[in-house]
């Protein structure tokens, strides 16, 4: 039942994307239909999450969908399989898409391509989160390119065209890396690798596993937009209407989904050998991004660096190859895909207002003040946000095992807290705007309220009762790692 709900939630969006692209409806009617379709998808994944949640006490944490989708002639049994973390992430992505309808109502009203792209993009993200076969994952991964191009390119200035091209080209490189990696290590080639990669007369042979690992990491880091490809991700935050970046902020789900689901399973020996190296690398990355976060001059940059900090934390948790680390990383990934769009929505509300009130006047605009306070609360990693527990678990997974990366992670925390304080009021650091008069300033409109508060309250609720989210994720993660022979 819940497997069917997941399939319905995923493929309904594809049907709607085709409908919207076909031009059968326009304007407000299309917006309403789009909202309805996304709400149905959200409800579908709510059913999946609740189904898994009910079963998690008994230890079963997966749903096998009845759909068999042959992706090519080698994989006759490609199917969808949702475990609790992927179902929770799917639900979070659907929530962001539903909220996006309200914050970007005008945009969706006037651009049919954006409506179709949103549905198509979410379909691909949900499909990639549910894919249980690497080649099926590749299909959904490839599908995200055009919606990404549309989000980054439509209504853009001339200077952004190069960004669109760069993004698309990097994406193509990631796709080809992934295809080669998945093909080379799938049937019918698996088992004959040793003789494949001879450079000249067999004198120097590239270890196939390390080559596969490099290709996989290249694909994952490009699609997640983390170092060394963070520059391209940063350009996304520079578009005219910042709310347009919110769906693109879900992209790390695909990159990390690839790592969590297929990385360790495909290359267990290589990850065990090189894992500590990458862990140290991303631990330094946390410190670097925290410094960038603290030193950022604009609100957009702060959101970008916060996203990078979170991505680095997730990477560190993943490479720790421990239950605690993976548990924390999965929780942080959920937090990241909710909080970054939330911050972008709040930022969009700020940027829409020409005149800004001073900090003293904020009390006169309660909704505005509350949204800003919530944004600061989440950016500070306070114990009332689920991000705190995720970061704690990741840091804890390093204790006693990885000595030298730990100081980088611990020392980064004050920097993040300092930067989080600055995010409390987005316009701080932009004196020209904050000094202007607050005349004509209005509190959040109804659409903005509907977009921001459900996300914010859901994050707050999960932060106050973290067991709701963290319990089933922990069960699922420990089960998955145990099946791969890893126990704490």
């Amino acid at each position: 039942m819940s497997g069917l709900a997941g399939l319905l939630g995923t493929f309904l969006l594809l049907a709607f994307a085709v409908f919207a692209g076909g031009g059968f409806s326009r304007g407000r009617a299309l917006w309403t239909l789009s909202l309805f379709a996304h709400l149905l998808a959200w409800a579908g994944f709510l059913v999946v999450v609740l189904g898994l949640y009910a079963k998690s006490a008994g230890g079963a944490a997966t749903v096998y969908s009845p759909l068999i989708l042959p992706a090519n002639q080698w994989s006759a049994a490609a199917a969808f399989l949702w475990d609790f973390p992927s179902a929770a992430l799917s639900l979070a992505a659907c929530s962001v898409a539903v909220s996006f309808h309200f914050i970007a109502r005008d945009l969706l009203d006037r651009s049919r391509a954006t409506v179709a792209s949103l549905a198509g993009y979410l379909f691909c993200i949900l499909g990639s989160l549910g894919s249980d076969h690497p080649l099926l994952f590749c299909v959904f991964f490839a599908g995200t390119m055009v919606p990404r191009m549309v989000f980054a390119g439509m209504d853009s200035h001339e200077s952004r065209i190069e960004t669109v091209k760069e993004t698309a080209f990097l994406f193509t490189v990631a796709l080809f890396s992934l295809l080669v990696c998945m093909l080379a290590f799938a049937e019918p080639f698996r088992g004959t690798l040793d003789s494949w990669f001879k450079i000249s007369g067999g004198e120097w042979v590239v270890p196939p596993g390390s080559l596969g690992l490099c290709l996989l990491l290249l694909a994952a880091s490009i699609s997640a937009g983390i170092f060394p490809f963070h520059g391209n991700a940063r350009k996304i935050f520079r578009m005219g209407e910042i709310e347009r970046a919110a769906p693109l902020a879900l992209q790390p789900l695909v990159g990390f989904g690839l790592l969590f689901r297929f990385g360790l399973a495909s290359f267990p020996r290589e990850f065990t050998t090189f894992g500590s190296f990458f862990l140290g690398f991303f631990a330094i990355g946390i410190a670097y991004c925290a410094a960038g976060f603290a030193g950022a001059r604009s609100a957009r940059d702060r959101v970008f660096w916060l996203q990078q900090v979170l991505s680095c934390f997730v990477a560190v948790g993943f490479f720790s190859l421990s239950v605690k680390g993976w548990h924390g990383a999965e929780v942080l990934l959920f937090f990241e895909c909710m909080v970054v769009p939330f911050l972008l929505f709040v930022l969009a509300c700020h940027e829409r207002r020409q005149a800004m009130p001073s900090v003293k006047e904020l009390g006169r605009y309660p909704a505005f003040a509350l949204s800003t306070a919530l944004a600061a609360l989440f950016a500070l990693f306070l114990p009332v946000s689920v991000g705190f527990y995720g970061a704690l678990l990741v840091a804890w997974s390093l204790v006693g095992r990885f000595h030298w990366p730990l100081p980088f992670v611990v020392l980064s925390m004050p920097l993040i807290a300092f930067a989080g304080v600055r995010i409390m009021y987005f316009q701080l650091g932009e004196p020209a705007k904050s000094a202007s008069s607050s005349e004509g300033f209005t509190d959040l409109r109804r659409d903005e309220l509907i977009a921001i508060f459900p996300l914010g309250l859901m994050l707050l609720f999960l932060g106050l009762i973290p067991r709701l989210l963290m319990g089933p994720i922990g069960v699922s993660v420990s089960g998955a790692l145990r099946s791969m022979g890893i126990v704490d």
Partner: protein
Amino acid sequence: MPLSELIVGFTIFLQGALLVVPRASVVRRGVEILALAGLGAAALKLAFSLGLPSGEHTFAMLDDQAIFRLPRAALIFSSLLLVRMASTTRELPEGRKPEVIFLITVLTFVCDLLILSRHGTLSMILLVLSTWTGFFLGGLAYRGRAEGEAVLKFWVQASVSLTLGFGAIVMISLVAGGAHLDIIAEYMKGQAAYSPRSLLVVIGLFLPFLMAGGFFPFHFVSIDRDHGLPWTVQTALSVTFQGAIAVAAWKVGVSVFGQSSREGVSEGMRVLQYCGLIGGFWLALFALSQVNSKRLFSAFVGAHWSAVLAAGALPTLLSATAIVYALSAIFVWSAMLGFVWSRFQEWAGSEEISAVYGAAKEFRTSGLILLLALASPLCLPGFPGFPSILHLLAAVIEQKSLSFLALEAALLSLLCLSGIRIGTDLLFRLSPGSTKRAGPSEFFCYGALDWGVILSVGAALLTAGFFCHPILRSLTQSAATFLR
């Protein structure tokens, strides 16, 4: 003779008969309807006989292999778009359009026969015939100096192809004892790898194909040759002509060198692979730097043909399936790309791509058709490009060579970059010269015939993309017969 060939041949006969009728309007409409009906019927016949066994119509010189029915169907499908292009374009004089449509049908027929051919002499005759048909097409489009230069270059190429082709086939016949592909293959089995005699056969057999098709080392020929020709002729030459030669060259390579008793990649297929790789890189890089749309289109499509040839050096079941599927896909999407791109350029009255910046956003229906055409080279799932790339990479992985794998992946990435560039320029860029563009919007009003052709070709693209699994399975079964 296969039924599809008979249908196209009969269509040509009827068109020829109609061309002598003095009433121009009747002739033009009649020739076009005949071409669409005949080509459509032949393409459907081929598409529905994909799963039927090979060899129903095998003669001494022609070989109806089931594996080549898909590219033949794709070739004929793409000609439907060419016929519509010829009919609606303003680049061709009205009075010459029936002749152009007639010649496009003839070119399709000759190219289809070229794919069927299993005899060296017949292949050379068909190669020369198709070159001359292209030459006549260029001549019919004559309006001024630009077309005149193109026709002159074409004449030079046709003459060289004629000399080279027949010289080569005489030489091979003397060396191998015959020009039938089976005889040459038998001869090759007795030769040492990379011996002077085997290299002589390789050069003699492939050089005419490479020359006529504009593949490395003659990769610059087609772009220079086609420069100045109308879009319809340009697309016919880049898609039908060049594509058929690519398929035929690969078929000849596999038939003669693929069945060699030696293990690994044979010298003939290796040469074809190098030609594909070098020419592909040259054309892909050339495409990136082009501002002239016709040259960009020619290089873009040519690089795709070369990239596929570069992947198919090892004739195995997987490789044969991959190559045939990828070549078939290119026929259809490249014809569609030429169809819609030409309208943008004609509307702008310029050959520069900067004149049509953002035009696809302005005219949404045409923009959608452009996206439909570009979806395949951009590897989007649901379109034939994604399974093509997947299988091409697998075919190269089968060769167990890291360097070739890296080169092929780099070439395909460059081609994707070119596709991205075309897509972003036509979709997102703001036009700097929008005031200059005074072209009528009638260019983007599609009639019933246009819609019929677009929908049938679009449906073929989507069917090949979404239902790639049964098609690939059928191809694999046919490949087993072909390779045996």
